[in-house]
């Protein structure tokens, strides 16, 4: 639907280098990368704000490389909301339709509709300056959506918000996507966000796309050292969490992982490889999680070794241990071991 071919753009501090991407119709596509990776300039180039140095952009097979932003029908939402401070919320949301010379009545109708969808109807007569970050971001999204864009570009839309608001807005973004079925390109530096929202994702570094795939693929098989480092390769699982008696019990492919984070429903679970103990005998201890498994592989990384332990679920646990421990315990591929970790080491999101 959007096809980007060999796109390059140099703005001095930020730049894009030979970016090629193919984004499908209705996809929720995430772009993940550290600060300065060129994520924002990628969006701005897609929106038509900067002219490309070289390369082509196609939207629905039409070459849009040289047409101005207003003819592209691509919506853009910046991290800092950029609501027009001299207009009311209503006028902000209706801004785009006014450009299109839509009748006042029709504008009113559409604004009300979008305001309802984004839950900002009660704010229509307020000025943006007095609103919270979450409210402003909702309005900015409504303002973009009212144009019924073919593609909606979100530039770190959640990064300036507090945790609670972030979680609520994530859910709303999911809803917006499923209701409007708009293609969304969402830029973020949060791995969690990419995982929770994206149907596919790209990892960017220094103006280049280093990997594209489903979040799961990218996470399981990072194709470069940068991706591995940036994603903090470790143990990531999906499961069903039940909260009971101040503790959460998460069913992951049949095994139960206990966590101190009390979040029910379908969740993701991650455990840092350094937080897991390996032992050859079962441990009775204060640690709430203990599983028996087989060593699937051993990777020697100098003073640290990474051991993959298969405990009978889809993906093995990765455990990092020191060379001394490894030598003392005499571990071998295929050997039977126990892995143990505390409930507080289980990160749930």
């Amino acid at each position, binding site marked *: 639907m959007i096809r980007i071919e060999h796109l390059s753009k140099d703005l001095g501090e930020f730049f894009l280098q030979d970016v090629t991407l193919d984004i499908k119709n209705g996809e929720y596509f995430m772009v993940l990368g550290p600060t300065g990776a060129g994520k924002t300039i990628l969006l701005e180039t897609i929106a038509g704000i900067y002219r490309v140095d070289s390369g082509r952009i196609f939207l629905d097979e039409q070459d849009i490389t040289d047409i101005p*932003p207003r003819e592209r029908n691509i919506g853009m939402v910046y991290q800092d909301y950029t609501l027009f401070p*001299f207009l009311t919320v209503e006028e902000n949301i209706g801004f785009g339709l006014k450009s299109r010379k839509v009748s006042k009545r029709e504008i009113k109708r559409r604004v009300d509709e979008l305001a309802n969808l984004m839950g900002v109807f009660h704010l229509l007569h307020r000025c943006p300056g007095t609103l919270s970050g979450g409210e402003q971001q909702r309005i900015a999204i409504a303002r*973009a959506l009212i144009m019924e864009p073919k593609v909606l570009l979100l530039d770190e839309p959640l990064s300036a918000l507090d945790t609670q608001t972030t979680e609520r807005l994530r859910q709303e973004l999911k809803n917006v996507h499923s209701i409007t079925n708009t293609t969304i390109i969402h830029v973020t530096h949060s791995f969690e966000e990419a995982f929770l929202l994206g149907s596919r994702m790209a990892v960017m570094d220094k103006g280049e796309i280093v990997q594209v795939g489903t979040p799961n693929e990218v996470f399981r098989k990072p194709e470069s050292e940068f991706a591995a480092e940036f994603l903090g390769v470790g143990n990531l699982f999906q499961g069903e969490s039940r909260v009971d008696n101040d503790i959460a019990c998460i069913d992951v492919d049949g095994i139960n992982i206990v966590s101190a984070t009390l979040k029910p429903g379908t969740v993701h679970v991650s455990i840092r490889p350094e937080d897991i103990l390996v032992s050859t005998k079962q441990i009775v201890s204060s640690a709430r999680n203990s599983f028996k498994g087989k060593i699937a592989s051993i990777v020697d990384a100098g003073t640290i070794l990474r051991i993959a332990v298969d405990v009978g679920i889809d993906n093995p646990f990765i455990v990092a241990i020191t060379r001394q421990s490894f030598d003392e315990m005499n571990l071998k591929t295929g050997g039977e071991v126990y892995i143990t970790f505390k409930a507080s080491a289980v990160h749930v999101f």
Partner: protein
Amino acid sequence: MLKKLKRSKIKIITVLSSLFLAAFILVLIICVVTHTTLPALITSILSEEIQFAIKLSLTTAVVSTVMCIGISIPAAYALARYDFFGKSVVNTILDAPLALPPLVAGVGLLILFGTTSFGRGLADAGLTFVFTPLGIIIAQFFVNVPFMFRILRGTFQSINPRYEHVAETLGCTEAQAFWRVTLPMSKNGLLAGSIITWSKGIGEFGAALMVAGATRMKTETLPISLYLNMSCGELNLAIAAATILIIISLISLFVFERYGGFTRVF
């Protein structure tokens, strides 16, 4: 207590200096406005000559301010947003009238409009600047345009271009984005710039004197009126002109500082 006083000696001296300076300025202004009696002042202000001067000053200043706005908006926008060859040279040249004595600017305008073929061409087309109110306007424009330009450049620089970018994705052309977003967001800067340009235009003397001369009831603005009446000893009329000028300048200064103008000038 004695020790306390001793230790803050430097504070006392410096604060007294500032108070002394402020008192000097205040006394001077009071000297002018109290130099005549209130009835005499009112009579003078209502005289035909002062009424003419007020009207001429107000209109020339308004016209020159509009001209300053008209050229400064695009020029300041170009220097705030774009990079182009010779940008820094243009910036420096636009600062020059700030340092140039107004009298010299007036002589320059007189030569340009009075002696060159360009000036004669304009005169043939009906635009005579020498010794006419048009000359007053061009003098005010030339002397004040760098102020307006600097204020607007600062204002535009302080507005994140992302606002324009968003407006463009919402169906605006670049020009529409400027008109519908950047300009409304520059309201305060524009207001502060206009008021100070207008006020300085009303007070302009040296440049206007050179180009337009000092002809009673013809090119007699308030400063020219002050000058003419001081010269021929019509003290009451002179004080009336001075008082009006003081009031205008103090009110504009107040409005200007209120809208944060100074932070935008340089």
